[in-house]
């Protein structure tokens, strides 16, 4: 990475209270987001992707305990901000797009009003007309036709894909530096997905906003992201450029994930799944969390006893595998 990071997570660790105990949901999550890039975060359900995004803006459930070495953003540490200061970052400088556009909008408020509101929260002196002008510009940017009239409609009058565009417009209206998009296409039809991704890319191109795209869909990643953070069991296992990751991943989990994509197989061949299931967060193995499912020929006693850290390999690739320097494609 060349440009200075706009957002940098260092050692983000999150505990969630379940019953009487705290369970560690995120362990030492560390990565940077460069200005204007689209960075993907992939992993299975429960790997901590969404929690990572929520941690950045501290939209966590009340029973969560966040400890972070630092969540650096524009010289400040988001983890240490007071609520009032945090509010000035939320929606103003870091926007958020959630998974399900059907439930993200307030059902009893006109769509345009909700976007206006996002603008007016951060521009208290702006009039209605000014806010509406901004909203309409954003709706047009993300490809909502007839924005002027549609803004006066209620969310139930909008389709899922259109609503997600509205949510993206809402996240963009204050011209933020970063957008956190948490599975923005998962709840949508496959045909609509491409259009929503397109809207995000256009936002990046025209507004220069960095996009953190959280998804479990490697196909989406390969289409739009320039870099990928692979997460497993609450930790980062690999960070790589998208092309490098797909060509030559340095972690057996990433390799297995890429290999299990339907597109990786010839027609008629059975699909390959990663055997086993992710470990329970309350009962993580002492060594590498992926060791029980790992099919790497290099797997050794060390994998079971010693947890590998996220470190650069000899050629400068970040991987949390003891055998990061060995070629991984042999697993397949």
């Amino acid at each position, binding site marked *: 990475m060349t440009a200075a990071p706009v957002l940098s997570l260092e050692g983000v660790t999150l505990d969630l209270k379940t019953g009487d105990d705290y369970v560690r949901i995120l362990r030492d999550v560390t990565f940077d987001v460069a200005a204007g890039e689209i960075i993907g975060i992939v992993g299975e359900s429960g790997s901590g992707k969404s929690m990572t995004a929520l941690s950045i*803006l501290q*939209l966590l459930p009340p029973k969560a305990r966040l400890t972070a070495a630092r969540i650096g953003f524009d010289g400040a540490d988001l983890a240490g901000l007071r609520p009032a200061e945090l*509010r*000035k*970052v*939320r*929606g*103003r400088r870091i*926007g*958020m797009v*959630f998974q*399900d556009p059907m*439930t*993200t*909008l*307030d*059902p*009893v*408020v*006109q769509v345009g009003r909700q976007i206006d*509101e*996002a603008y007016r*929260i*951060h521009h208290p002196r702006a009039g209605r007309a000014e806010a509406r002008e901004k909203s309409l510009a954003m709706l047009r940017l993300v490809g909502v036709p007839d924005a002027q009239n549609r803004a006066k409609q*209620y969310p*139930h*009058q909008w389709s899922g894909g259109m609503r997600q565009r509205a*949510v993206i417009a*809402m996240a963009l209206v204050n011209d933020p530096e970063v957008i956190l998009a948490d599975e923005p296409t998962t709840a949508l039809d496959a045909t609509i997905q491409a259009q929503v991704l397109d809207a995000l890319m256009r936002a990046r191109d025209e507004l220069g906003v960095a996009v953190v795209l959280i998804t479990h869909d490697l196909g989406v990643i390969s289409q739009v992201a320039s870099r990928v953070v692979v997460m497993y069991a609450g930790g980062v296992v690999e960070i790589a450029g998208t092309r490098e990751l797909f060509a030559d991943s340095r972690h057996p989990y990433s390799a297995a994930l890429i290999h299990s994509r339907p597109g990786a197989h010839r027609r008629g061949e059975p699909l390959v799944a990663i055997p086993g299931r992710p470990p329970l967060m309350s009962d993580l193995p002492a060594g590498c969390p992926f060791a029980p499912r790992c099919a790497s020929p290099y797997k050794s006693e060390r994998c079971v006893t010693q947890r590998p850290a996220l470190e650069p390999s000899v050629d400068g690739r970040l991987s949390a595998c003891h055998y990061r320097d060995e070629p991984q494609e042999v697993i397949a």
Partner: protein
Amino acid sequence: MFLIIAVGLFVLVRLAPGDPAETLVPIDAAPGQREELVKAAREQLGLDKPVPVQFVLWFGSLLKGDLGYSFSTHQAVGQLLLDRLGPTVLLMGSALVLGLLIAIPVGIIAAVRRDTFVDAAAGTVSVIALAIPSFFLAMLGIYVFAVKLRVLPSAGMYFSGESDVGDLLYHLILPVSVLALAVAAAFTRYIRSGMLEQLGQDYIRAIVAKGAGPFRATMHAFRNSLIPLVTVLALYIPAFLSGAVVVEQIFSWPGMGQMAVNALIVRDYPVITGFGLYVAVLVLICNLLADVLYTVVDPRVRTAR
């Protein structure tokens, strides 16, 4: 619909045991005379005719807006209802408004500060208030404020026939407080649970992600929690406007509830049926009003243009 209600009411009232003519004739009338007096009364009231004939006569005049005359006081039932409506609307309306004015902020705060001392306190007080019967509270109020402290009147609307607003307000304090407490207790719970449901929704988190403060997020949740509240109010208001039988009785409040109880005691058929019709119409109006209100609070109900 209205016809079915009218027939049902008329038949049910007449099926009830007891003879209104009997109650009109003095008990100490001479044994021989009594039979004849009862018979005369029955003829005078039109009760000697077969029930279907009675119904047709009654329904015919009902269509002309005439609800008949009270057996005991000979007042026109329509006028009687109107006379009683004012005091009841005043009493119940004030209680409802006051109760909601308490319940809305308390319910919202209890939901927002869930599982804190404030929430627990609001919950405990409302359970206690719901558990105490209103007649007990009413008598307690009379005992403390009217008998012991002598600061509030115990009954009636005015001191001595004169109508003075200050005097009226003074007489309203006790009964309204008793009724408002019950309203507040019930609605605090409705509002709290409605708010809790809304505060847990995704759109609230999205609003916080926009940079909204807690107040703005709460207002969005409150706006949405009004939708189920309309249903509850539509069911509650008719029951409320038909008068609080017990409380009106205790405070000698000249309202609907008191009128209905007195009419039942003397089997005053026209008044009972008139009251029944009033309640039925109220239910219909409130349901209609609720449907209209839904379109105001919930854009999803509005038909697509």
